[in-house]
């Protein structure tokens, strides 16, 4: 079976995580599930890669964590966005949107003659 999913561009994973957490605190597994389901499984992410990414964001002070009980009564490490993280995410999102729009404009544009 060949994997046709998209490779994730460098630096975009953090934005996805932050965006996910912007809807509220979540544990790692929930974040993983949310990204998988909303992307309709079209992104090629090793599930394990999420965790170092989370720790790094925490080290940067963009998110913080503590152990809480889940609805099923198990202990899980919940992450939530800090104020710094929220601001950071907004800046990153804006940057990505501009990137994507610019990218799209270039792709969509048609020359009227030769571009030379």
């Amino acid at each position, binding site marked *: 079976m060949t994997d046709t999913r998209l490779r994730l561009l460098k630096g975009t994973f953090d934005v996805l995580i932050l965006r996910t957490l912007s809807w509220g605190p979540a*544990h*790692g*597994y929930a974040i*993983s599930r949310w990204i998988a389901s909303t992307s309709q499984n079209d992104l090629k992410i*090793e*599930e*394990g*890669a999420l*965790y*170092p990414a989370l*720790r*790094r964001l*925490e*080290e940067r002070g963009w998110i913080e964590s*503590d*152990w809480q009980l889940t609805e099923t009564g*198990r*202990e*899980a*490490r919940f992450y939530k966005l800090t104020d710094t993280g929220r601001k950071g995410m907004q800046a990153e999102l804006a940057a990505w949107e501009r990137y994507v729009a610019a990218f799209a404009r270039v792709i969509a544009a048609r020359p009227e003659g030769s571009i030379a």
Partner: protein
Amino acid sequence: MTRKTHGPDDEGLPMSRVKPVADDVRKELEFHLHERARELEARGMSAEQAMAEARAQFGDRRIVEQECETIETRRRGTKRRAERWSALRQDIVVGLRVLRKSPGFTLSAVLMLALGIGANSAVFSIVNRVLLRPLPYENANRIVTVVERHDNNGWGNLPWANFVDIRAQSKSFDALASYSSGPATVLGLSSPIRANVGIVSADFFKVFSVRPFKGRFMNSDEHKFGTPAVAVVSYSFWRDRLGAPSSLENVRVRTDRDYQVIGVAPDGFTFPESNHIWTALEAVERGTSRTSHNDETIGLLRSGVEPLVAQREVDGILSGLSKIYLPDFDAVGAKIVTLQETLNGSFRTPLYLVLGASALVLLAACVNLASAMLARGTARTAEFTVRFALGATRLRVIRQLVVESGMLAFAGCACGLLLAAGILQVLRALAPEELHLEQVTLDGWVVGFALVVAVITTLLFGLLPALRLSRANVSLALRDGSRGTSGVGRMRAWNLLVATEVALAVVLLSSSALLVKSFNKVLQNNLGFSADSVFAARIELPEILYEDGASIRTFHERALANLRALPGVSSVGFVNRVPLTGANPSGALMVEGKPESPKGPFNAYSIYRVVGGEYFGALQIPLLKGRVFRTDGLPEPTPSVVIDEAFAREQWPNEDPIGKRVMVRGMDPGNESWLTIIGVVGSVRNQSPTTPFAATYYFDYHARPAFRVRRAIYTIHTSASETAIAPLIRKAFADVDNQVPVAISDFSETVTDSSASRRFPMALFTAFAAVALVMAIVGIYAVVSYAVAQRTREIGVRLALGATPLGVRTLVLTSAMQAVVPGLVVGALLSFGSASLLRNQLYGISPFDPVALVTGVALLAVAALVSSALPAIRATRVDPLLAMRAE
């Protein structure tokens, strides 16, 4: 009450315990795999399949785990450090605020620390240098000086003949050497200079276990009469004066003879005193006298032989010699002490006393600090209690206190070190030259010790109040308010501390009063001469140029004439040895018409001087009877002599000594003639400002052809300033002979220096007494203030019940005096003890001088009254109602 001063992280313990890093990571990943497997199971997989699939989708778990652990460990470390720093910063900020709010306490604590550390570090450094550190010679503890004791309780150097016999017979020494040293004119260099030249016997260098830096020392053939003249020079002389020649061949120096330099002593060796040339003593004929005490003796004891044991052995040898040579023999025994003792011994007692004083001052500083910190801590009990009750951990409060105390300690130490450096500077300037304190620096160990003591005291007593308060008794303390921890027991302990300080200060004050009084006595002492407006010009006529008496006399005649002609010069004379210069050459003589002594025909003993020009006039030594020597350059018609008042009183208490005759023993062996006394002058202090006047007679340098006054000190009385006159004096001598260098000094400085050995301990004691007084004042003030604060409510009640302010003040003062008075009494008693230790340092007053003691006690009593009166007055300004509600 103190405002809330703790930080936000005081409240609340962490709700969940922080998991160890590995657990934290493993559990999180396990949770993920577990949840994923459950989801897959729900879609119909078997448990094992589901877990295998979850693992596969997860990727390499080991790598993830490791990466997470690394990041987490790093993050936690950074966080911890940041928290610690911010907590410390906050503690410091809070601490500074707290300390600023009570400037009196802060200043006095810092002052206490600074005084304790400063005084101790400086004094210990000096004591360490002078008394404890060995001299810079190998086997320094075995190097001893040897002198003989005489029956008049005095002592003298070993005569050469005795030295030779002792050296041959004694088994106590590895090496024994005789030497003398003094300034000489050195020729043969680019210009003539003055340098100290030592004349040393064989084995001199062996005593110090030194080896030549270059060349060799004199061998046994060269330590003989009539051998070629060879010399050893010091390292600095070789380097600076000779130009550091690599070969000593043809390097010559000329003093009394023309010497071939054969060796260079190692760098730094200049014994006995800035000596730069050593020649063989045996090269000059030594004579067989057993009563001329010219050369000093130094020895290296055999390993394991104590000075006293050697002394007993030499006693025996001398008593054997006396049986052979009496009456021409005056030794009754020997005195052998270490060189260290000889050089610094006279400073031992005062320095140990000062050391004791400084240790007591450090103790007093710690006591004051401790009581201040305790008082403060107790006063803050309520603050701590509230903070505990609000959930602050004990550790947190203790940390705050550590930081506060630490800041005090730091400030105190910094000020203390500055003070120590300052004190040392002053002491170095005050110290007598022979202590060689120029190179003393603060001793690292000493400073370290004082710092550690101070810091421990600060921290310990800063923390004690908080340590006593455990969480268990918080509620009790809250209910009790600030009364809870006061107590009769503690007040009693503090009274004891105050009494100790008072006693200490009394001892130091009365001791320093004794020393000051004694020093004034010394200063007021009649020296018998005046050094005001007198310049001393020291010359040594090089023997190589001035061999016979005639050339020497001519030099002096011409020099006197040139100097007299200088503008502003009122009188000029010279002498072979000025007053106040320590041990004096003296000799036996025969007084005509007096009975012979049992020991021989010579029936008197006297110091002598050889003078020229208007020596008596220049130093204002009064002529009491008769006349002094003629100054017109013509010889006296008959051989004559001038004696001093002490001599006259000793020999002719009721007669006129003028015209009487004396004969000097050994003056012109075989050709002694009677000398007629032509005048009597006032006595002068020949040895030191405090030695009694001793019989002295004066020769005129013309008197005998045999006199060769090559070493002379010209005394020039002039109204001119040193800068104006010095070049003129130099020229006056150079006009006679430019091969004779001159050393010019203000003679009044010599006189001042002669009392430096007394000024030094006096200054030290006075400084410590002042410090001790400050300590006592601060101590009393602190304790009385605290007592008043503790009794605010009681005082309020008393006032409300109609007590008069005067009554309350009396009450406070009375309780303060309960501590002070015993201190005064004990101090006065101890003063007697310390005074008897000081006995040898005192001149002209009794160690039990009542004025000194009363001064000490009275000064302290006044200080105590004043320092307890302030809080007593403050006590009565209390509003009774407020006071009773105070808690």
